[in-house]
């Protein structure tokens, strides 16, 4: 299955952000949402996508967009990684069942048991308006997302 394409309704999901808090996609309805699936916390930083998106976050906010990172790491792992990288957006744990949400989005790599580097921009009505799967080992930049946000109806 390839990643979900534009015009498809973004499947709703509920995942842990912290040990006792969950976040559902439907809670974010009403604003554009950027879903960033990535393989793992703690990969070599500086070249890591979450730090990059973190630095670009103020630009995403100009479009009132929410950003959410998703990997199969546990919420404890996310908590430590997030603190270390000083992230200002939530990381969701697609931990149990492993990769269930990633699979719904066509963004799960069976070989490695981690999420692919896949980006989705969802409009305020919950429809995917853009998606991108990065070639293996390549971090997508934030330029694709910004272009899409710019062209969303105000």
């Amino acid at each position, binding site marked *: 299955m390839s990643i979900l394409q534009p015009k498809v309704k973004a499947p709703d999901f509920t995942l842990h952000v912290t040990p006792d808090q969950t976040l559902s996609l439907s809670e974010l309805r009403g604003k554009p949402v950027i879903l960033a699936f990535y393989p793992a916390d703690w990969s*070599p*930083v*500086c*070249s*890591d*996508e979450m*730090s*990059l998106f*973190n*630095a*670009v976050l103020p*630009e995403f906010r100009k479009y009132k967009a929410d950003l959410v990172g998703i990997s199969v790491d546990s919420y404890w792992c996310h908590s430590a990684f997030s603190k270390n*990288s*000083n*992230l*200002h957006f939530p990381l969701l744990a697609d931990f149990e069942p492993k990769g269930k949400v990633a699979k719904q989005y066509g963004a799960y790599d069976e070989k490695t048991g981690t999420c692919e580097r896949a980006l989705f921009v969802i409009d305020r009505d919950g429809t995917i308006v853009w998606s991108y799967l990065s070639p293996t080992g*390549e*971090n*997508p*930049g*934030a*330029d*694709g997302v*910004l272009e899409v946000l710019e062209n969303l109806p105000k």
Partner: protein
Amino acid sequence: MATLKVPISAKDHIRGNQNAPITLVEYGDFQCPYCGRAYPILEQVLENFGDYVRLVFRHFPLADLHPFAQMASETTEFASSHKLFWETHDLIFENQFKLSESFLIEIVESLGLSGQKLLAALEAGTYTSIVRESFLGGVRSGVNGTPTLYINEERYNGPVEFPELVNFIETVLLKQAR
């Protein structure tokens, strides 16, 4: 294919032959260890190609990850206004592990500039927007980490290592020659 969205201009920091057929742009973060690692490699690349390659450095600080990166970038801009960009750039990368506000002051003073004036500029944020502009230009160009290199406006996705870079640049030169 990610391409450079901000063309090279007189405002850029350019090292080497201004009219070189190959332009190597580095979007870098002064506190990033990978950029620190790339520093001698890029120097070797430039040496290897002589007049054929020029190097452009553009700021891409990841401020949440590297607390001194923004300050370091602004310091080089301060130095640049006194025509000492590259000297400052080099001193920072050669001493990355010492990076701190006081060390940046030491660096500029060692180059004959006023540490007081640097502090004032940092406090006033005189060079904050120029660094931010560079950062945003990088984002638009598809920068996906640090360092991100562009060779003749196309993002280079290979390893930032001497043999691979030399190989790649030679291929570009050959294509140009046809």
